[in-house]
């Protein structure tokens, strides 16, 4: 398959997540376990013989969901509630909920009420990550989750099956990271939209199938030589649970930005950390949970050793980015809470950045375009002025 056709297949999956999952369920006969984003180890559901699917914000206008949740909840939670109210999740065999913010918790309550016959696994992961008991508590939560899954499938999940799933998922993350590395180095031309498609489709598609397509894609990129790109190298930060609208990503690149790296959940955050396949799987998952917050710090977790703003400054240097665009989902409390620290650190270091607030209802990008274009113009002019001054 060509690069275009592989990306086309993955794009369809990414943009039609529930239809893709439902088709897969029919074709494979596997149970589909929908999960909230961010911290759920899909490996475990996979080892239980199910296909884990991370629930996505839909592009549809929110209608009936308005009756169940306040308009000042983020677009992701409102959309999840709306999809549940519309019956979109009826085909799911189970849903895994986490409680990483108050709004997600509210959405979980509505979904539970709306889908009384769907099995729900609720897990409360420790959010204090650097205490002596953090690892033990995380393991305990994953054990509860495993027991819930075992109850659903009617038999235990053995360690070897867990390790096999862990290896499969690791392989997926490694290939996606390789593609990120190739983009950073200029060896593969991948737009921000394409990168999102690659990661988002991994949240939905059967992992073995996704790996097969990624292998083909990597082989194709190895064969081609990428031409150098000109423009402002941009680092994208923010957007946790939901994927940024691809129109926003396209707009940034149309304005002359080249997105070279990100810490988005539908990006590096999702694939940053592998799970150790040589130790007890539950120990390994608990370790993974704590480690990935050090790899790409998450504002919903607290770790004395993690510092998001310093991580971003370092990551920008590593990817030789000229400026950062922060994509903040409207009403995302964890992000809003941490943003002032990022702003201050970037200001102190003199690194240009632009904040864009995104929302479910936003479909016109023209006014945003003016801001992004100005930002990129300023970064270029400031860089050139510095060069002349030097």
């Amino acid at each position: 398959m060509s690069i275009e056709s592989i990306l086309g297949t993955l794009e369809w999956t990414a943009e039609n997540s529930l239809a893709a999952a439902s088709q897969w369920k029919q074709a494979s006969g596997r149970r589909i376990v929908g999960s909230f984003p961010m911290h759920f180890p899909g490996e475990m559901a996979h080892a239980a013989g199910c296909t884990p699917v991370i629930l996505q914000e839909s592009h549809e206008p929110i209608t009936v969901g308005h009756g169940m949740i306040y308009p000042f909840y983020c677009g992701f939670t409102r959309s999840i509630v709306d999809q549940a109210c519309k019956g979109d999740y009826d085909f799911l065999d189970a849903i895994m909920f986490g409680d990483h913010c108050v709004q997600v918790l509210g959405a979980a309550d509505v979904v539970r009420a709306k889908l009384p016959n769907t099995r729900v696994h609720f897990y409360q992961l420790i959010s204090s990550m650097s205490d002596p008991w953090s690892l033990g508590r995380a393991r305990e939560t994953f054990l509860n989750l495993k027991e819930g899954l075992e109850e659903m499938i009617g038999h235990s999940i053995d360690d070897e099956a867990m390790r096999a799933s862990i290896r499969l998922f690791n392989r997926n993350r490694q290939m996606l990271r390789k593609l990120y590395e190739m983009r950073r180095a200029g060896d593969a031309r991948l737009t921000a939209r394409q990168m999102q498609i690659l990661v988002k489709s991994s949240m939905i598609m059967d992992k073995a199938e996704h790996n097969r397509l990624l292998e083909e894609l990597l082989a194709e990129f190895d064969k081609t030589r990428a031409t150098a790109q000109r423009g402002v190298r941009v680092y994208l930060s923010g957007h946790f649970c939901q994927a940024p609208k691809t129109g926003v990503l396209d707009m940034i690149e149309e304005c002359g930005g080249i997105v070279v790296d990100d810490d988005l959940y539908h990006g590096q955050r999702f694939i940053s950390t592998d799970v150790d396949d040589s130790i007890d799987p539950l120990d390994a998952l608990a370790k993974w949970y704590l480690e990935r917050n050090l790899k790409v710090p998450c504002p919903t977790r607290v770790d004395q050793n993690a510092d998001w703003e310093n991580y971003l400054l370092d990551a920008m240097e590593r990817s030789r980015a000229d400026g950062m665009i922060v994509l903040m989902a409207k009403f995302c409390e964890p992000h809003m809470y941490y943003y002032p620290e990022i702003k201050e650190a970037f200001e102190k270091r003199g690194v240009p950045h632009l904040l864009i607030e995104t929302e479910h209802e936003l479909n016109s990008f023209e006014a945003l375009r003016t801001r992004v274009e100005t930002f990129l113009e300023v970064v270029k002019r400031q860089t050139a002025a510095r060069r002349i001054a030097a």
Partner: protein
Amino acid sequence: MKSYVMGIDFGSTTTKTVILDLKGKMVASCVASKGSISAEGVQVSMDGAFAQAGIAQKDIARTVSTGYGRRMIDVADQSYTEITCHARGAIAMFPEARLVIDIGGQDSKVIAVSGDGLVQQFAMNDRCAAGTGKFLEALARAVQVPVEAMGALAMSSTEKLTVSNMCATFAETEVISLLAEGKSKPDVLGAVHAAIASRTAGLVARVGNRNPIVMTGGVAKNHAAVHYIEQALSAKMLIAPDPQIAGALGAALFALDEVAKPSAAMMDEEDGADEAMSSARGCATQPCKTAAKLPANERPLLGPM
């Protein structure tokens, strides 16, 4: 002989054209109003400027466009955003200014500028029309007063009333209920201008207040808006005789730079900008900590809070 440059500001409600000779002297400026994003408006504005200068399109060496419709102008060789161009134009009008408040038909923006007219920081109204020319137009309609007359009427206000500054539609509802309570049109219009001023003060706070301040854009021609904004900021503002053309003037000045020194066409993909950026990036790999630092007197660009 191509001895002129042109700047076109294709705004949401008006189009402005400025023509400069190659020494930078303004030979023509023309404002045309033909409705939202009107190609006809562009033509009328350009033709008006050509007629004033006594020249034709063939005499133009380079054209830079700006404004909402900047990418829709075929004759433009280059386009920059209205933020970049307003900053440049305002500093050309008042070199001492360090903050530009531009209130146009659709957008309002506050821009912190350096002495060379480069943008340092900016904040812009989001999706809502509150605090823009559209807000005034909508409320002039609600009070049934021509837009041009509303400023003078507001200046004769005697009672202090309040109108919400958050949403043009809510504000209209409030204006109607104030009128229903028997409040006078001047007082209601005073409140409308105060609402614009408080919205502007919010944008200024995002960027950080600096002096001197220059105000550009169509709303700068409204004395009441200027008065209330000055009151809200506790500062006098500099207003050009024709504040509406600042963006077009800035665009024309960029065109002039690019004619005078082609390498100044920094935004062009074919020019030295990318090279400049690559060399500036050169040491940006770890553990270099100096690459992204700005000179001490230069503030980095920030996003609005």
